[in-house]
Structure formats: structure tokens, C-alpha cells
């Protein structure tokens, strides 16, 4: 029972060793690949800068194949290598060898071991033929594959084949091969051959000062002896192996050594030592586990923290976005409110201004309208007056002149009568002229284009000037005219308009005066003003009617000879007096006479 158990245990032991060997092979593979790559580069013409040749040959694809292999893009490598092999692009065997090796290795990495084996066998065939030193790599790989598949016979066969060409060259590959051969024999329980090979591996490792190799060799030798129940030698080798393993950093190997020793000591009933080894084993296991676990935990922690951070960031982003949105909405609201307010303000201002404008315009329009109405009214009346008034005196003039001609025709001595008629005609023409002059002033005065400049005026002289025009008329009616104006009186007025004013007053006074009556002009000065009174002894008129008279242009009065007056003259007088910053007033008693008063500003000697 015990032996069975122990055997069983010992086999368990072996398995675990083998398992670790595998990883050992994989580790050492890295170095061999680097060396192999150098060889490949040597063969590759592209890498050797032979650009011209590379174009003609398939070296471009070859270069791509090994380039992709270096970069780890093994699928592409496989495609290029397969294509090159199938097309038989290369006659050069060493290149074909490389291609097969590449293809085999790709397949090995993909764990397609059958296909890999085929390619690698081909590689060996070519490699042996051309004696390529890198065939050893192929053997190693193949050996590895077989051990992996537990095809130990095949492994032994291929490694023995290798050993034939092997010339005791101490290299990493050869050490691994020898070792693997030993292990394979150990599995096949060909202990003597196993012992030879493992011892050789030990020697080679010793020569190369390969501690790891020594540790492995010792441990495997220990296993070898232990399986054969050579416990004492086995123990010494285990301890040796442990010693070497402790020098390496390979923790699984050390762990393995501890475990093996623990089992061995346990079987030797040496529990204290066994427990010690077991503890060490556990420690390493823990440390490995811890390493892993700590790593994992750290990773997890990292992940968690990252996740938390991510979450935080996300929430922050979310909140920021929310805030942004809120801000945006707030801004939008603000803008909208502001724009609404501004537009309302503008609207209010605009409406206010437009109202103001409209108000102004309305007031202007209304005043303009009033003015226009008045103007149109006056104009209409004026035109009717002009036509009527021009018609009658000129008609009269015509008739009088006609009769004058008739009188003169028979050449009688009624010269006096003719003179009288002609004088009357002259008077009519004079009156007509005044009317036209008035009209002209009226029209131009309304247009605001009347020549107007105020100056120092001697009233007495002006009255004399005006009187001069009416001497004949006054003589005809035998009216006594007296200019009683103080010769020291100077007023500030426009000469032309003052003349028109006085002319109208005088003309009117003569019209409404009885023959052989008297007419006086006098002045009455105050501090700043002077009033000139024109007093006649005419028919006068009702004061009440006069008020209307002055406001209505077409109000007419009959003069002493029954002729109809217009009132235009008087109205013009008012306007002109006002324009000279003075005033115009009429006082009349019907049947007794009229006093027309013109008040003007005194001339100031400044």
C-alpha cells in the first residue's frame, strides 16, 4: 500500500515537474528566437539593402513575412510564408528552410501541432541537407511540441536525431534539448538513459554556469533517483536543487523544490523538516498567490476607483451639463426678457416720439390748415374784390374819357368841363392804382417776401409825401388838410409800409368826407410810442358795425358819392401797423366823423 501510494505520489510529483518544464522551455525560447531573427535578416536581401535584387525576386514578400513575425502579426506571416512555399519562389534552400521554420512556429503558437510538426519536419529535412546551424532550434521546438503532447517516444526520437548532429556544443538550445531528452526518458521510465542525459544537462549547465539549468537538472535527477527509490541520492540532489533554485528568481521552481523535499522528508518520517519545507512551499505559494491576488486586488481597486472616478466624472459631467443647460436656459431667458424689454422700450419710445411727431405735425397741420383756410378765403375774396373793383372804376374811367372825347369833338369852348372830366379820370386811375398797390402788398406780405427794413422816419415829411399825391383830390372836394404833426417826431418803421398805411387812411378819409370839410393830422407822443391821429368830418359809421367791418374783408360801405368801398385798405392797414410793431385803431361816430389812430414806436437815439 505504501509503495503504491508513494509511487502514485511520486508520479504526481513528476507531473508537476514536467508542467514547470514546459514553462522553462517557453522562457528559453525567447533567446533562440532573437538569434534566429538575426539569421533571417542575414538571409533577407531587403534588410541587406540590395534593393535591385529585391525587386526581381520575391524578397519583398519574404521581408514582409519576417517583418510581420517580428511584430507579432503572425497571421500575415503565415499567409506570406505559405504563398512563397507553394509558389516555389525560392530555389535557395536556406530561405525555404527559414520559411518552413516561420510557418512551423506560427502553427506552434496557434497550437496547431500536427501541421506545425509537418512543417518543422520539412525544415529539419532541408536544414540537415544544407547543414544550417539553426536546425537545433527546430529540434527544440519539435521536442517541446512532443513533450507538450506527451508523445515522449516521438520526443525521444527527434531529440536523439538531434543528438546525432549535436557536437557537444554548449548552447542554451542544446542544454534544453539534453534536459528535455532526459525528462522524456524519465517519463518513459528508461532511467539509465534518463540519468545519462540529465547528468549531461547538469554538466552542461555547470559549464555554462546556468543556475536555473543546474537547479532543474538537480531536481530532475533527484526525481529520477527518488522514483528508483534511491532516496539518499535523491535527497542530496533535492537539497542541491533547492540550493540552486534558491539562487534563482524562479519562484515556481523553488516552490516545486520545497514541495518535493517536503514530500520526501514526510516519507522519511522526518516531519519537522517536511513541515519546514511545506511551510516554505506554502509561503511561496502564498507569495505567488498574494502577488497575484494583490495584483488582482490592486487591479480591482484600480478598476473600482477608476469606475468610481468615471462615475464621479460622469455625474460631474452630467451636473455640469445640467448646469450648463440651466445656465443656457437662464441666459436664453435673460436674453429673451432683455430683448422683450428693449423692444418694448423701443416701441414705447417710438410710439412716444411718433405721438410727439404726430402731435407736432397735427398742431402744425392745424395751424397750417387755419392759415390756409384764411388764405384761401382772403384770396377768393381778394380776387372777387379785384375783379369787381377794377371793373367799376376802369369802366367809369372809360366812360368818362369817352364823354371827354365827345365834348372835345365838336370843338366847343367847354374846356373847363373837359378838364374836369380828365381830372376825374385821373382820380379814378389814382384810386385804381392804390387798389392795385394794396393788392400787391397784400399778396407779397402774405408770402413773407415784402421788402421791410425799419429805420428812423420823420413822420411830418412822410405825411407831406403822401399828401402830395392827394392834393388834387382834396382841392376838388375843397377839403382843408392840415398837417399838425410835431416836426420833431421820429418813429421807427419801414418807410414803404408806412406810406401805404397813410395813403390808405388818407384815401379813405377823402372818400368818406363831405366836401368843404376839414381834415387834421396830429401827433401824440408818449415815452416810447407816438400815435398819429387822422381826424375827418366825414359820414362816419356805426361803431358796432365797424367791428365786423374790420374783421370781414368783403364788408362794404358806401362812400359819400355812393361808391362802394371794399375795406381791403383798412384791413391792410391793420396788418402793416402790426408788422411795424404798432397798432391801428378806428373811432367813429355816425354822421360826425372818424378818427383813425396809428401808434408806432418812437425812434430811440441809441
Amino acid at each position, binding site marked *: 500500500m505504501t509503495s503504491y501510494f508513494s509511487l502514485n505520489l511520486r508520479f504526481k510529483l513528476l507531473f508537476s515537474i514536467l508542467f514547470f518544464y514546459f514553462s522553462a522551455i517557453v522562457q528559453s525560447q525567447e533567446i533562440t528566437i532573437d538569434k534566429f531573427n538575426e539569421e533571417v535578416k542575414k538571409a533577407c536581401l531587403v534588410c541587406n539593402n540590395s534593393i535591385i535584387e529585391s525587386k526581381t525576386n520575391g524578397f519583398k514578400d519574404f521581408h514582409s513575412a519576417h517583418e510581420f513575425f517580428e511584430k507579432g502579426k503572425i497571421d500575415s506571416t503565415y499567409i506570406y510564408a505559405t504563398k512563397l512555399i507553394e509558389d516555389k519562389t525560392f530555389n535557395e534552400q536556406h530561405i525555404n528552410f527559414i520559411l518552413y521554420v516561420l510557418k512551423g512556429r506560427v502553427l506552434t503558437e496557434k497550437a496547431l501541432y500536427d501541421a506545425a510538426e509537418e512543417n518543422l519536419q520539412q525544415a529539419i529535412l532541408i536544414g540537415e541537407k544544407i547543414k544550417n546551424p539553426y536546425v537545433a532550434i527546430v529540434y527544440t521546438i519539435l521536442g517541446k511540441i512532443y513533450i507538450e503532447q506527451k508523445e515522449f517516444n516521438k520526443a525521444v526520437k527527434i531529440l536523439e536525431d538531434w543528438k546525432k548532429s549535436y557536437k557537444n556544443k554548449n548552447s542554451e538550445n542544446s542544454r534544453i534539448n539534453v534536459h528535455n531528452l532526459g525528462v522524456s526518458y524519465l517519463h518513459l521510465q528508461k532511467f539509465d538513459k534518463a540519468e545519462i542525459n540529465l547528468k549531461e544537462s547538469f554538466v552542461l549547465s555547470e559549464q555554462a554556469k546556468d543556475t536555473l539549468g543546474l537547479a532543474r537538472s538537480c531536481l530532475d535527477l533527484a526525481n529520477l533517483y527518488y522514483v528508483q527509490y534511491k532516496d539518499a541520492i535523491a535527497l542530496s540532489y533535492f537539497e542541491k536543487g533547492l540550493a540552486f533554485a534558491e539562487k534563482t528568481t524562479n519562484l515556481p521552481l523553488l516552490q516545486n523544490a520545497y514541495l518535493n523535499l517536503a514530500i520526501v522528508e514526510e516519507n522519511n518520517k522526518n516531519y519537522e523538516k517536511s513541515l519546514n519545507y511545506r511551510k516554505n512551499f506554502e509561503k511561496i505559494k502564498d507569495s505567488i498567490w498574494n502577488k497575484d491576488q494583490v495584483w488582482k486586488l490592486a487591479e480591482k481597486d484600480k478598476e473600482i476607483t477608476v469606475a468610481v472616478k468615471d462615475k464621479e466624472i460622469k455625474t460631474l459631467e452630467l451636473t455640469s451639463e445640467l448646469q450648463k443647460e440651466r445656465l443656457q436656459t437662464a441666459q436664453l431667458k435673460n436674453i429673451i426678457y432683455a430683448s422683450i424689454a428693449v423692444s418694448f422700450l423701443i416701441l414705447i419710445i417710438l410710439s412716444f416720439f411718433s405721438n410727439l411727431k404726430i402731435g407736432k405735425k397735427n398742431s402744425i397741420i392745424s395751424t397750417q390748415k387755419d392759415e390756409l383756410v384764411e388764405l384761401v378765403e382772403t384770396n377768393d375774396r381778394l380776387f372777387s374784390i379785384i375783379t369787381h373793383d377794377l371793373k367799376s372804376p376802369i369802366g367809369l374811367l372809360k366812360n368818362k374819357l369817352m364823354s371827354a372825347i365827345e365834348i372835345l369833338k365838336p370843338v366847343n369852348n367847354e374846356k373847363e368841363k373837359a378838364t374836369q372830366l380828365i381830372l376825374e379820370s385821373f382820380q379814378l386811375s389814382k384810386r385804381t392804382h392804390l387798389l392795385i398797390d394794396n393788392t400787391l402788398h397784400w399778396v*407779397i406780405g402774405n408770402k413773407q417776401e415784402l*421788402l421791410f427794413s425799419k429805420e428812423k422816419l420823420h413822420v*411830418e415829411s412822410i405825411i407831406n409825401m403822401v399828401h*402830395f399825391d392827394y392834393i388834387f383830390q382834396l382841392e376838388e372836394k375843397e377839403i382843408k388838410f392840415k398837417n399838425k404833426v410835431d416836426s*420833431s417826431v421820429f418813429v421807427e418803421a419801414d418807410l414803404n409800409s408806412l406810406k401805404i398805411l397813410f395813403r390808405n387812411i388818407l384815401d379813405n378819409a377823402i372818400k368818406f368826407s363831405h366836401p368843404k370839410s376839414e381834415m387834421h393830422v396830429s401827433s401824440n407822443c408818449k415815452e416810447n410810442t407816438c400815435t398819429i391821429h387822422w381826424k375827418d368830418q366825414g359820414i362816419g359809421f356805426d361803431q358796432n358795425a365797424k367791428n365786423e367791418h374790420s374783421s370781414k374783408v368783403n364788408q362794404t360801405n358806401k362812400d359819400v358819392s355812393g361808391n362802394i368801398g371794399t375795406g381791403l385798405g383798412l384791413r391792410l392797414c391793420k396788418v402793416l401797423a402790426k408788422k411795424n410793431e404798432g397798432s391801428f385803431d378806428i373811432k367813429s361816430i355816425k354822421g360826425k366823423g372818424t378818427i383813425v389812430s396809428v401808434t408806432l414806436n418812437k425812434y430811440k437815439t441809441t
Partner: protein
Amino acid sequence: MINVLLFEDNKNDVAQLKASLPKNEFEIVGISNNLKDGVQQINQLDFDIAIIDIFIGDNPEGIEFANEINNSTKQKPFIFLTSSIEQDIFKNAKNTQPFNYLIKPFNKFELLFSIELAIEKFAEQHGAFAEKKTVFCNDCFFVKKNNSLVKITFDQIFYVTVDGQYCKMITESGNFILQISLTQMLKDLPPEKFIKTHRNYVVNLNMVDSIFPNDNLLILKNKDKVLLSRRLQSDFFSKYRIFK
């Protein structure tokens, strides 16, 4: 005589102007109806006042004529004559600083008044004639006598004497009472021509006919006798070179 220069192309207006100006007071020395002749007359003729129609034909040449007078060496008063009373016409005329406007048609009285006004304004003695004052103007003065304007050059004066508050001027054209003191009068007369011989007399040196120093008497060319006070004799004689 007051010399008048006319710038007028309308024959009717010329006729009326001629008729309106009293013959014994005014003399029309030149009439032109274009700028070229007008400028020539300004430079050649001796005139006291110009009457200018603004429009010659349709062009306001009268304004240029007025400018010519203003720019000439002998500045004289002038009157603008126009039939229009509208402002536009006068905008350009205003710049020439006319002394009066006369609106057509005008009567004799208006024309004379305008001339008086123009002379007053030119002498910057506005209203002087109405106040019966003398208007001095360069080498002459104007007086209103019996409603007519009289121009008296200094050469025409024999002497000036006191008449109550005023002074009496004895001239070739007659005697004038001036509402001005003798002292004031003396200031207005050119000192190289006039000298005070007595507190009541100012004499035109050119009008002295003979001197009687012993009798304190001067006989003037019009045979008037003027007193020569003893106090003022030396002053009087300093003006003459006396050959003894």
C-alpha cells in the same frame, strides 16, 4: 446846385426824374444806361448823388454800378430805384449798403425826400434836415431852405455871423440861418480857409476884399463890412503876407 448822376435805361423814368427834380436846385450831370458808360461817368463827372435803377433790362447791373461807386476814390451817396418791392431783389443790393430805396412809381416829394435821406445817411446825420440842421459833406454842406435843399460849397461862403442863438451864413447863394452855434460852425469849416475875426464873425479868407486895421474893419467881396477885433488881428494877419 446839387449834381445828380443817373443810371437808368427807362426813358419814361428818366423823363419823370428830370421833371421831378427842381431846376434851380438840381442838375443832372450825366445819364448812362450801361455799366461801361456809367463807370466812365463815375470817374469823370463831379456829382453829389447817384440815382441808380437796379435793373438795366433784365440784369441787375445797377448793383455793379453801386459797387463801382463804393470802390471809387470819391465815395458818394446813391439811391436805388426799383419797381419791385419783393425781398429777393434786394438781397444782393443790400451788400452795397445803399443809402435809400425808392419804389416806382414815385412822386416829386418822395424823390426829394429820398435824396435828403440819402445825404443824411451818407453824412451819418440821420434826420438832420427835419431838425433844420446843416449836413456837412466833404467840401460842402447842405441846408434846407423853404422846403428846398441847397448845397453850399465852402468857397461860396463870404462869412458867418451870429444871429441870436444860431448863426447866419452869408453866401453867394443867399443867407441861411443855421441851427448851430458859431463855435460849432468854426469846427466844421476848414481852418486854412476860415478864420475868426471877431467873437461874432468867421470870415472866408478868400472873400476878403480890403482891410482897414485902424477902423477894425474888413470889407468883403460882396461889399459887406465885417468887424476885425484888435485881439484877433495878429491871428488874422498871420494868414497873410503883408507888404508894407
